[in-house]
């Protein structure tokens, strides 16, 4: 298990390195780094100072070393717009995004798995077909368009929920969270549903397909032949088997939730790091873009690592072969 962990962590570091190289190439090689990293309104003296600090006059491999060294120390440049370290600005927005993503993930799992299993157990029933039809809809409506419809219906036409912003937050363990007050929760519902719908459809389809496949297996029939209640057959024998692929997907999807939050946050003016990214792109605040990218890569790679570990805990077959290997 430890060998496996070490190897997996090594792979993850490699992935982060690879992305760092790509970001470096994107920033330093394709564009002129002076343009990318230095405020266009800077004075000649500023430009010279930054050029020297970033070592832009040095050979490329040295520049990469400096970039990496700075990145490791948390220095990903200074925002043109805010005049503060880009990483700090991003980190301030991180809790809002994570709260949104986690709530959305919870919604999509808590609703998606039961619906998917139901549809998988009775694929020909009306309920099963309706669930599948609904999931095609959730799959097909582009995220931003769903968000707009949600605002149109629940905020504009019905007036039940606010159209945007985050509302009141409460501090828990030093983090600002929304879900503890009604005002915060009411601001959270629409964006979270918006972010959840697509993933929910994905989970429904995955759970349904896996349920159908597992249902055909002999061990399900054997479990029934043992006289187990249908409840136990579904909740233990089927569910435990479909959880393996579903957990994998859920984990990977948490990463993409953080990315898709860009869209939801823009539509709902949710003050997370995704909205910050779009604002920064529009304002050409490139240090923030670079910082966002590096942080997101780190988050996604970290999540993938975590998922792999959980996966190996869930599936005894993998656990054994990996421990041997």
């Amino acid at each position, binding site marked *: 298990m430890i060998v496996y962990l070490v190897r997996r962590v090594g792979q993850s570091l490699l992935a982060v390195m690879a992305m760092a190289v790509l970001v470096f190439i*994107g920033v330093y090689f394709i564009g002129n780094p002076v343009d990318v990293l230095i405020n266009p309104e800077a004075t000649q003296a500023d430009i010279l100072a930054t050029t020297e600090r970033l070592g832009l006059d040095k050979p490329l491999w040295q520049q990469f070393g400096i970039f990496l060294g700075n990145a490791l120390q948390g220095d990903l440049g200074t925002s043109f717009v805010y005049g503060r370290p880009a990483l700090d600005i991003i980190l301030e927005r991180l809790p809002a995004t994570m709260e949104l993503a986690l709530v959305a993930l919870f919604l999509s799992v808590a609703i998606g798995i039961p619906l998917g299993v139901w549809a998988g157990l009775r694929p020909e029933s009306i309920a099963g077909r309706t669930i599948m039809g609904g999931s*095609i809809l959730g799959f097909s*409506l*582009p995220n*931003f368009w769903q968000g707009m419809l949600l605002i149109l219906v629940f905020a504009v036409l019905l007036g039940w929920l606010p159209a945007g912003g985050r509302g009141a937050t409460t501090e828990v363990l030093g983090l600002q969270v929304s879900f503890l007050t009604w005002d915060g929760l009411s601001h959270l519902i629409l964006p979270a549903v918006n972010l959840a719908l697509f993933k929910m459809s994905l989970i429904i389809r995955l759970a349904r397909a896996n349920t159908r496949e597992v249902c055909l297996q002999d061990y399900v029939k054997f479990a029934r032949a043992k006289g187990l209640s249908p409840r136990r057959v579904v909740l233990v024998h089927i569910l435990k088997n479909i959880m393996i692929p579903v957990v994998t997907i859920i984990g990977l999807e948490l990463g993409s939730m953080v*990315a898709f939050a*860009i869209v939801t946050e823009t539509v709902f003016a949710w003050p997370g790091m995704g909205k910050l990214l779009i604002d920064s792109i529009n304002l050409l605040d490139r240090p923030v873009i670079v910082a966002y990218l590096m942080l997101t890569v780190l988050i996604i*790679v970290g999540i993938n690592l975590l998922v792999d570990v959980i996966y190996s805990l869930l599936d005894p077959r993998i656990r054994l072969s990996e421990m041997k290997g």
Partner: protein
Amino acid sequence: MTTHPAAPPRAAPVDSPTRRIIAQFMEDRVAVLGLILFICIAILALMAPWIAPQNPYDLSQLNIMDGALPPGEVSFGTDMTYMLGTDQQGRDMLSAILYGLRISLMVAGVSLLLAITVGTIVGVTAAYFGGRLDSFIMRVVDLQLSFPAILIALILLALLGRGVDKVILALVIVQWAYYARTVRSSAIVERRKDYVDAARCLALPHRRIMFRHLLPNCVPPLIVVATVQIAQAIALEATLSFLGVGVPITEPSLGLLIANGYDYLLSGRYWISLFPGIALVLTIIAINVVGDRLRDVLNPRLQK
């Protein structure tokens, strides 16, 4: 020899796999409706310049007096009826949607073809040569697929700037890996068969073995992945344009039309944003319904 030299040399037998697949596809009425809908949409998009009531980007045809008219209003200048209303600049929304559809489909279609080409070549190469090359390619594919497409596309466009060509490039870059993985996994199954080794012993050129023998086996899964991916491509392009990093304002796709009308949506002028959105959603649903059925029909595991 027969007396009918014109007769086709190989008439498909009634139960050829292709025919069976088509017959099975046709059994699902929803899927057939989806297919018909998609064909109609594609024709409308293709014919846009000839059937649209006006050229929405010829500024001389626009009348600012007609700005933000609701659906069904008649123009102040000409006697033209705006069936789906106009936008703030007095542009006929129906025409704008037809032209936007054209751009959306064109971007998705071109990127699809390019991504399939790149992905297929890479995938077949990896499967055929195997070994180090294979594991290197698959590492790259896995690495890329572990990052969300929208993130990669967004960053690329943030660095490259707006433009139809740049959007296409971004879509190809985020999509080729799906095809490479699909093609490789089907090709590798075929690669293990003895006749491929036999063909290599005969010193047939690599290219011939790869494309004449390995490739045909990859077609069914490729079709399934392609239908899913083209819907994704259309949605992704729309999203990028909505976020303001996609196509330029001079060539608005459906996503950009929706974004332009977004501010007016909340003030009640719903049509500027809603109708392009419906067009976009109908297109994607049609493709997804077809893709869903294709996957069921082409998946041998669920055949009973």
